[in-house]
């Protein structure tokens, strides 16, 4: 009988096929199904793109109105020439999907609180937080707004159709490799996803506040200490709009509620048992110099937005050329248009405004059912939004979020008894009033900027920008330069929104928005340049509205100091400035630290490191050891100064901003907090500085033994793959820079796109971003710009013309027609 071996071998074969066709947990990680994943005709091998891949294609798509030609240059930048404007957006969507689909979808899943669908239960907290913050709610409002605008709706529809036209071509083998690794398939794109992506940018840029952490700190420190720890103005501030500027007459008059001083600003009762939240430090630089300061006589505009560094990159370089405009720059995979770049007439760029546009109100519900809440002396009916969060490998989680109407605005009660997120655990009810919930039409800005011909067009474009508020820089071939600290900003009374506010009546609500004609701006200023580096936009002793406390100071000082000195500027000078590693904060502190260190108390190792520091030029260059010495020294010093004072403060209390301690010791060597409250004697500045140095010495010795004393090795800048897979990331990049340098390259955060545009007759443009045009880890274009970026070098940006179709830089041509 052969039937037994037949059945046996058939069973073994089937079992093996089944095993190889399902995913397994190996070493705690989900491994992809090996059969599917390794099959050379289906799996990851299909993503191993030939290094000389052919990008030529001729596509017929009935959605198109005319003909579009796409020329890929040798950096895989597409130059899109469309007969019809909306076809250009269709093709942009197609190209974004072709090269970046996985990232586009992941970002919208993260934005919409759907990450659990892909990576399972570990993303549930994230998903709940995002849904409770009202990310989907905000995106739906934005979609509604977008659909009222026929131009933008048509633009978005075309873009979405383009993305979907590509998705429809996908087969098992052509799926991006991450889908194969994780084991899922892409959905159809939609305009809502574009809105979700834009709200994700709002989350990244306009969700910066420390209300819980400040509330905790306020509950512990005396009013006097509090004002010393969290001052609202830094002496060294060089604001975006120079001091002495006269502002438009005030038209909105926010008034603090009666009693706010005692019940709110100095209220020591309300404390939040906080857990603390991760630091968020998105910053950027931009500036423009007028022709009077340049060698060519034409303005130069520069921008380097500092964001989280990831692979695939947030940015995708593109040229869009249509009968109505011709623009070049970086775009967001997920949205149509050029976001930061230039056209035939002008250039534009952004830095984050960083103002607090997210406040919390404590809500009083009648009972735990949250059905009714107290507002203006009456019980009001709550609305509920019930979210079903699907979870890979587990049952769905159903979350019901209460929405309460505060004034005119429905706000989600983000924190309640069932959810404290990573920030609070006091089971209170906090509704969030976030500017990003308000209707706005961000895509209109970029559409209008791409078409802009002059200052009036720029102004008309950027005033559409509500949230995330940005410092919008502009330069034009006619010689104009400008900057506008743009946004729709709540007009706040002093201290409003620094802490969690009472939400039982209208008293503490935002009382209006700052009128657009009171938004500070500069147009062709006398000094011949405009600039911003996320510092406080204006000197608020003269501006009418409260702007909050925490803004980075030092990059702004460094940029303005250099721009004032510079003349006969060339684009190369500007590249050198963008990649400048001088730490002005360290420079201010160096004499003070050297004057106060008691060298006699140091051991041999300490003396050696002190010598390194003494010789240090305050530049955080690659190879610098002084930077590492100072970094560890400052870190130990800050701890010595404040740790004792915060030991009994509620957990998660806000710590002072960097500039607070710097300014305090520069101006007052008897700064109160230098003393360690746990010792009988009174510590002095020299005591703390010396003790900190001794503590740092031990760490520095350890670092030196590990071969990590050089700044770039200590800092170890990396660009993570979005799924944090190390082999798909770039680690330990040899690059200098740091928090207070113009080149603000930190561990995994830094200049995400460096751009220098000289607006000469024929535009001279340079740029680089830490990534590559292809999102496919199997493509040579995946990370092809990273080394150039790390070396501080740029590429020439080629605004191609239709006459240059035979240029030798072109490696492929795609045509799209109906």
């Amino acid at each position, binding site marked *: 009988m052969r039937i037994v071996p037949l059945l046996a071998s058939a069973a073994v*074969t089937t079992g093996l096929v089944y095993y*190889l066709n399902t995913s397994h947990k190996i070493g705690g990680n989900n491994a992809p199904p*090996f059969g599917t994943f390794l099959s*050379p005709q289906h799996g990851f091998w299909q993503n191993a793109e030939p290094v000389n891949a052919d990008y030529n294609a001729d596509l017929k798509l009935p959605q198109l109105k005319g003909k579009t030609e796409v020329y890929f240059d040798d950096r895989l930048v597409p130059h899109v020439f469309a007969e019809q404007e909306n076809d250009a957006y269709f093709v942009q969507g197609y190209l974004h999907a072709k090269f970046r689909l996985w990232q586009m979808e992941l970002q919208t899943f993260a934005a919409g609180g759907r990450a659990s669908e892909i990576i399972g239960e570990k993303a549930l907290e994230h998903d709940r937080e995002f849904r409770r913050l009202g990310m989907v709610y905000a995106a739906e409002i934005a979609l509604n707004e977008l659909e009222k605008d026929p131009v933008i709706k048509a633009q978005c529809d075309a873009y979405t159709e383009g993305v979907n036209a590509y998705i429809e071509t996908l087969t098992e083998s052509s799926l991006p490799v991450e889908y194969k690794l994780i084991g899922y398939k892409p959905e159809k794109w939609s305009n809502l996803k574009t809105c979700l992506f834009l709200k994700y940018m709002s989350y990244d840029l306009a969700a910066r506040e420390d209300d819980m952490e400040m509330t905790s700190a306020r509950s512990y420190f005396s009013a006097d200490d509090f004002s010393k720890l969290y001052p609202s103005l830094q002496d060294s501030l060089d604001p975006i709009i120079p001091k002495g500027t006269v502002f438009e007459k005030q038209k909105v008059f926010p008034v603090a509620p009666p009693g706010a001083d005692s019940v709110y600003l100095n209220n020591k009762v309300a404390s939040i048992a906080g857990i603390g939240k991760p630091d968020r430090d998105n910053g950027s630089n931009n500036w423009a110099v007028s022709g009077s300061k340049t060698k060519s006589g034409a303005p130069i505009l520069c921008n380097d937005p500092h964001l989280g560094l990831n692979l695939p990159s947030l940015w995708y370089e593109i040229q869009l050329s249509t009968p109505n405009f011709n623009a070049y720059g970086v775009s967001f995979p997920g949205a149509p248009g050029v976001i930061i770049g230039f056209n035939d007439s002008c250039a534009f760029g952004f830095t984050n405004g960083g103002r607090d546009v997210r406040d919390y109100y404590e809500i009083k519900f009648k009972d735990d059912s949250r059905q009714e809440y107290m507002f203006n002396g009456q019980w009001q009916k709550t609305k509920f939004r019930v979210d079903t969060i699907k979870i890979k490998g587990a049952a769905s989680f159903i979350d019901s979020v209460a929405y309460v109407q505060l004034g005119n605005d429905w706000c989600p009660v983000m924190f309640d008894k069932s959810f404290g997120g990573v920030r609070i655990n006091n089971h209170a009810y906090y509704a969030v009033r976030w500017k990003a919930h308000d209707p706005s039409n961000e895509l209109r800005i970029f559409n209008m900027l791409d078409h802009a011909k002059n200052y009036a067009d720029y102004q008309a474009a950027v005033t559409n920008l509500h949230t995330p508020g940005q410092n919008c820089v502009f330069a034009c071939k006619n010689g104009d330069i400008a900057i506008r600290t743009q946004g729709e900003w709540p007009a706040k009374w002093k201290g409003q929104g620094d802490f969690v506010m009472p939400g039982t009546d209208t008293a503490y609500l935002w009382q209006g928005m700052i009128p657009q004609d009171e938004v500070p701006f500069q147009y062709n200023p006398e000094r011949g340049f405009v600039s911003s580096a996320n510092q406080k936009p204006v000197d608020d002793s003269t501006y009418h509205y409260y702007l909050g406390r925490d803004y980075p100071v030092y990059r702004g000082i460094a940029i303005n100091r250099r721009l004032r000195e510079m003349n006969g500027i060339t684009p190369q000078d500007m590249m050198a400035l963008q990649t400048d590693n001088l730490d002005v904060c360290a420079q201010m502190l160096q004499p003070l630290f050297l004057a106060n260190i008691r060298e006699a108390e140091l051991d041999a190792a300490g003396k050696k490191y002190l010598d390194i520091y003494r010789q240090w030029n305050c530049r955080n260059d690659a190879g610098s050891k002084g930077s590492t010495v100072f970094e560890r020294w400052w870190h130990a010093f800050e701890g010595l100064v404040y740790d004792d004072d915060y030991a009994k403060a509620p957990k998660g209390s806000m710590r002072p901003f960097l500039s607070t301690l710097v300014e305090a010791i520069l101006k007052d060597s008897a700064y109160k907090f230098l003393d360690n409250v746990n010792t009988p004697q009174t510590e002095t500045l020299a005591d703390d500085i010396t003790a900190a140095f001794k503590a740092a010495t031990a760490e520095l010795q350890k670092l030196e033994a590990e071969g990590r004393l050089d700044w770039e090795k200590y800092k170890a800048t990396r660009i993570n793959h979005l799924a944090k897979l190390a*082999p798909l990331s770039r680690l330990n990049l040899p690059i200098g820079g740091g928090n207070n340098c113009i080149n603000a390259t930190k561990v995994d955060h830094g200049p995400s796109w460096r751009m220098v545009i000289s607006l000469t007759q024929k535009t001279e443009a340079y740029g680089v971003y830490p990534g590559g045009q292809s999102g496919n880890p199997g493509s040579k274009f995946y990370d092809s710009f990273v080394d150039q970026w790390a070396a501080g070098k740029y590429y020439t940006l080629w605004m191609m013309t239709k006459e240059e179709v035979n240029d030798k830089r072109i490696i492929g041509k795609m045509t799209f027609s109906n």
Partner: protein
Amino acid sequence: MKFFVSLLLTALLSFAACLYLPWWSIALAAFLVAALVPQKPFRSFLAGFTALFLLWGGLSFFISRANEHILAHKISLLLIKSDSPYLLMLATAFIGALVAGLAALSGSYLRKSRA
């Protein structure tokens, strides 16, 4: 001779099937060839095994070579924690070979049991 015929047939049929069907169609191909071309069970196994070892090994090698092994370096680190494109090709070849070999064995037994 039969060995080489079935080896070649298995490889060709697997390749063609995988253009349209999921990866496990290699098992169907090997099974079918073994059921049609009479051989001793072990020789059928060996023909199926060798066919897919060569096919998957060869395909992954040529794809990866054209890619200058960019992706294979990364995936080998991810999957087998060792930077070894060739080991990854070997693993690919072996998995395909084992499935096809076993399927061919079953095909061969089917023929025998019907005979």
